């Protein structure tokens, strides 16, 4: 029998294996499905029945931006592998943000997180840019 999100949160808010604490920071959590990595009911990827996350994933040499949502079927709650669904997002800003909007406002899924998801999309995208460090050999003539 699936427990409500509030009940799950009450069990989890004290401690989970995903909590990471550090000085002068809010309590962070590294569970899958947590958009901001913050340990709170709003962002919890385990407790909530509706989940939204934008994250990066490395597949081979390619880096992908994945959108994670909760499976719509209630029966899937008992199948750990298929609770969260990950879909790729387009890496072009315009398309990607459109897809984020569609996944949230279009399907009424966590509209409260839409703005944050868009911001995170931008951040994930900029994280893919690699700064080329040019090392000047000391042996080269100046």
């Amino acid at each position, binding site marked *: *029998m*699936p*427990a*409500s*999100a*509030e*009940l*799950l949160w*009450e*069990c*989890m808010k*004290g*401690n*989970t*294996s*995903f909590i990471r604490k550090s000085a002068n920071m809010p309590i962070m959590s590294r*569970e899958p499905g947590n958009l901001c990595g913050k340990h709170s009911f709003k962002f919890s990827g*385990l*407790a909530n029945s509706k989940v939204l996350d934008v994250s990066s994933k490395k597949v081979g040499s390619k880096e992908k931006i994945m959108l994670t949502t909760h499976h719509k079927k209630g*029966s899937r*709650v*008992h*199948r*750990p*592998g298929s*609770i969260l669904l990950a879909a790729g997002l387009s890496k072009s800003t315009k398309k990607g943000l459109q897809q984020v909007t569609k996944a949230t406002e279009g399907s009424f899924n966590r509209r409260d997180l839409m703005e944050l998801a868009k911001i995170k999309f931008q951040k994930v995208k900029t994280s893919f840019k690699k700064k080329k460090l040019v090392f000047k050999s000391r042996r080269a003539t100046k």
Partner: protein
Amino acid sequence: MSRPVVSVFDIESADSVASTVTLPAVFTAPIRADVVHYVHTLMAKNKRQAYAVSTRAGMQTPAESWGTGRAVARIPRVPGGGTSRSGQGAFGNMCRGGRMFGATKIWRHWHKKISVNQRRYAVSSALAASALPALVQARGHRIDNVPEFPLVLSDSLNRVAHTKDARAVLERVGAYDDVVKSRDSRKIRVGAGKSRNRRHTQRRGPLVVYDVSEGMDKAFRNLPGVELSLVDNLSLLDLAPGGHLGRFIIWTKGAFEKLDSIFGTYEESAKFKTGFNLPRAFMTNADLTRIINSDEVQSVLKPQVTGPTLVIPKKRNPLKNAAVRLALNPYQAAVVARETKKASADKATKAKVIAEKRQVLKARGKEFAGRRKAFYKAASAEGEIAF
């Protein structure tokens, strides 16, 4: 309440479902983390061994206080002579070689009683929590590859006799990741326990619950982190280690089916626990979001009050802000008008005066220029200047 059906997996492969079983009612018991925590803290004390200092420690001297008048502190002192011990302070907790303050006693209340019903309540809650992947994952078990929760394997698991077969079964069923986690977490204990026969710590892996073993307990017991339990004596210390809900449990079909008779259902009492009935939840529907958003509640709510009715505007300084000053002092308009008029009138007269002055200066400048030229002309006509 209709209970869902749980698949029983064949131990040969996680894809093949051997049969299905109705979910035992225990798994629908209310999940009470507070009860579990309370019962666990008490239960965890029941395996303690007494420790205490010797009753005679620090008291084995006939020390007596020298009283006052001897220019020494009044602490009891060791009598006699001929040894450095004589005259030294004794007995007090502050004295060297004295007995400690509040000497530990063996008759400390080591073990805690917990009412039977509370214990059973906690176990029911812990079992219910073990059926929720969210809680099991939160507790730290690696369950991403497990096909279904609760995980029930067919009774052929009882006959697994070799550890390598047991390992193979767990791998097929997706439970081996948790064993790996446990194995990799084996470390030497931090602290003095390492030299007190508690050298290693490691995480707990899956709990395998069975009703009849035909060799499987010996097969599974050597796998790191794996624990075994008969379904008849499930302990809260195994179901909620550390007082935290969500142990990863692997059931055999026989054990799973036995739960209904051990714990009972909401229709009938437990057969093997006299007088025990499954605990009932205070709220049958604990989904607050759904309750709040339901038609029944929303239809009787008052309309939402939007925004504040009184808006206090930002204060603007009338001495600096012309519009505000004008609103407070309407005569300001006349004053301003008069002054601008005067200024422009002044301006006009000023301009006139300046223009006249300029004219005079211009004329004078012209006259002087003329005089200069004339002088120069005359002077140059006179010839060279010689001294």
